[in-house]
């Protein structure tokens, strides 16, 4: 009999070493999240997964599960915070969904839908972030980057290539690639890389397939992310190395 903690009043069993997020998802409880991905070391930067543990707010993806914890997640106070965080991410970048080929498969967008975010509010920063279309098969549209570092982690931890990294500090932080020219075409990225599959928004795109699947029939058009995230937990990669959970395109 494994030990448990309480999540919104329900007992959640956990294995030693699991975080609150991991145990919750495995037990069928959804906690909103963005930079968390089951295949990588939890990161804790987006803060969407903030919960209250014994009354104190913490990121559930990095919080080690412990017996007897009282965790609150699905409460309006926390959803209000999450809503503001989603709004901040929209206001920080240039998220123009109508022209984005990731629309409908985008995790940021899906979270906005689920949390009933009607507007980004805030004063939009409209940063200048030129595209990198140098690579014959891959497009980088930095306008949509939310700095979750999933590509950084995938390229470093899984691909062993370190194609991506973050540069700068604070609000000037941005994604860069590993080449003296600063261009993706001068890196050793390949279409089969894990880093190609993990972008939750529309930054890292395979060229010429964008609209194979019509808008309106995409992943989060069907069902809200809160329902789908549970289908995927614990998320697995298939034999060919594709992670169903990460990409709309196979």
């Amino acid at each position, binding site marked *: 009999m494994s030990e448990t903690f309480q999540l919104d009043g329900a007992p959640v069993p956990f294995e030693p070493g699991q975080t609150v997020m991991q145990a919750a998802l495995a037990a069928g409880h959804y906690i909103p999240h963005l930079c968390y991905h089951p295949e990588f070391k939890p990161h804790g930067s987006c*803060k969407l997964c903030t919960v209250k543990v014994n009354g104190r*707010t913490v990121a559930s993806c990095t919080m080690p599960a412990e017996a007897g914890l009282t965790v609150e997640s699905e409460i309006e106070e926390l959803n209000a*915070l999450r809503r503001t*965080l989603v709004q901040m991410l929209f206001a920080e970048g240039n998220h123009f969904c109508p022209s984005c080929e990731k629309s409908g498969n985008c995790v940021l967008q899906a979270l906005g839908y689920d949390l009933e975010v009607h507007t980004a509010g805030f004063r939009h920063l409209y940063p200048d972030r030129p595209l990198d279309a140098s690579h014959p098969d891959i497009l980088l549209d930095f306008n949509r980057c*939310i700095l979750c570092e999933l590509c950084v982690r995938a390229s470093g931890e899984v691909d062993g290539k370190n194609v991506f990294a973050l540069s700068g500090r604070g609000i000037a932080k941005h994604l*860069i690639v590993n080449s003296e020219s600063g261009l993706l075409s001068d890196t050793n990225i390949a279409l089969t890389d894990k880093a190609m599959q993990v972008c939750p928004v529309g930054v890292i795109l395979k060229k010429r397939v964008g609209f194979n699947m019509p808008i309106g029939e995409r992943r989060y058009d069907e069902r809200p992310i809160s329902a789908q995230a549970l289908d995927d937990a614990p998320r697995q990669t298939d034999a060919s190395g594709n992670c169903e959970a990460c990409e709309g395109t196979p």
Partner: protein
Amino acid sequence: MLPDNELRFDASRQIWLDQLVARHQTDASRLLQILREVQEYFGHIPQPAISRLAEKLSIPRVRIESVGSFYSFLHLKPHGEYRVLFSDNITDRMLGSEALMQQMCQQLWLQPGKVSEDGLVSISPTSCTGMCDQGPALLVNGRAITRLTHQRVQEIAQLIRNRTPLNNWPSDFFHVDDNIRRSGLLLDNTLAPGDVLRKALSLGGQKIVEAVKTSALRGRGGAGFPTGLKWEACRNAQGSEHYVVCNADEGEPGTFKDRVLLTRQADLVFEGMTLCALAVGSKKGFLYLRGEYRYMLEPLQAVLQRRRDNNLLGAKILGQSGFDFDIDIHLGAGAYICGEESALIESLEGKRGVPRSRPPFPVTHGYMQQPTAVDNVETFCQAALALHMGAEKYRAIGTEKSTGSKLISVSGDCAYPGIYEYPFGVSVREILQECGAVNTRAVQVSGPSGVCVGESEFGRKLGFEDIPTAGAFMVFDDSRDMFEVARNYVHFFAHESCGFCTPCRVGTSMLKQTMDKIAAGHGTKYDLNEIENLDSVLQNTSHCGLGRTACNPVLHTLKHFRPAYENKLKSLMFSPAFDLDGSLARARQMTGRDDAGAHLKEEI
């Protein structure tokens, strides 16, 4: 300074780089130290140097760019032969730093933040350089100049224009006063190097920990964690190595006591670190010195060497076999966040200074994931004193929960700024009287992340029972606009946010925008609501203390000085954040129009 493409083919520079890497044992964890030296040598970090370093250190070049771009004092692009940084703390501003910076910019024909067209000089503001008692201050190529006046700025501009090497500048420019105004058990100590260690050796590790616990010493960096418990946890933690780290990244605006301790009491600091090493079983220690205190590097290294020569560092310290310990000095490079202990450790490992997720804590998983005791400069001094004088005797000083003495860095509107040592429990009013402050409106205790104390609270006492403090004590008299004080602090937090987590990265920028909007006369009650909303997100969801406290200056000044905000509000109606008429200026310029329709009136 040569263009990057010329550097590429310059064999002598490549040899210099290779020797540099060799001097750092080709150790990638020393990347920040390597980059800092590259910056000093070239004036920036040239692209070919990055490629060469990547090759020699066997790390991806993207990691070097990532680290180099994190620290304010490192530049990936040419940034001028002379890089001038004006300390931009509110105390510098109150002493006229903004006008002085403007003056220098005019004299050298450039705009703040930009490099002059001939590549000679750049002038920018920077976060507090720790010279608040003798401001306004600046850094030129990393060296501190204090007590700026119009005349001194003029002289500096002339020296730069003449390309006079820094070593030939008048030496009194670089003089830093200690300004000790009141001393106590720490600053008056008469210990000789080795006195504490000799006593400690007779006790052994376990008893040292017991003694520090008995002394009830708490960390002097601000958080006040019991030092004895920290050392005990570190001592008991399993690991292949144990480390001792001295946090001398004194970045909290308004604090400069560590500067004085490292100048006057360096031996005691190192003695305290060595004592800690004995207690936790460590062979290796680091002093993480903030980049602003670069000028102390050589003197401190000389102290370390003297201690090695006197068998107070190195192998078999004081002849005790098995007691081996040495200290390495790492320099920061302009990042306030590295004062947070886990960010400091990341920086020590040669990475971006991003705070780690905790738990695990540094006492079990610190430097290189090994047990690490990180303590403030003053804490090590106090621990050494407590052990030497006896824990019970030490405990009698100060208050029950805040034992011993505390160095207070006093600056701002007072006759005698400088360092004051008091037993804990001293009231704000006592300090104000002693430093010659009159007509005081408020005191910012413990820096921007601390508390703003209004007149009605001057009876409050410094100590963990009431107002905890790392030591900053900035005084504002009744001529000061407390809104502007808060706005300066908000800019500071936005500049220093590491950018790791969403709330702090975006929230501090939004907060800055809102304060600027109010300052520009466009503020409304909606903006005060927005501040409250941002505060809730920052406090509840930020990754570390920086974000969690970034709203404090605004909340505290709103509480005590709400009219300072309200009288700036344009109206209670909504008002845009930007100047509508101003945003037509470019179109007016392009069309040559200036008719009534080419303007937008403000709405009343």
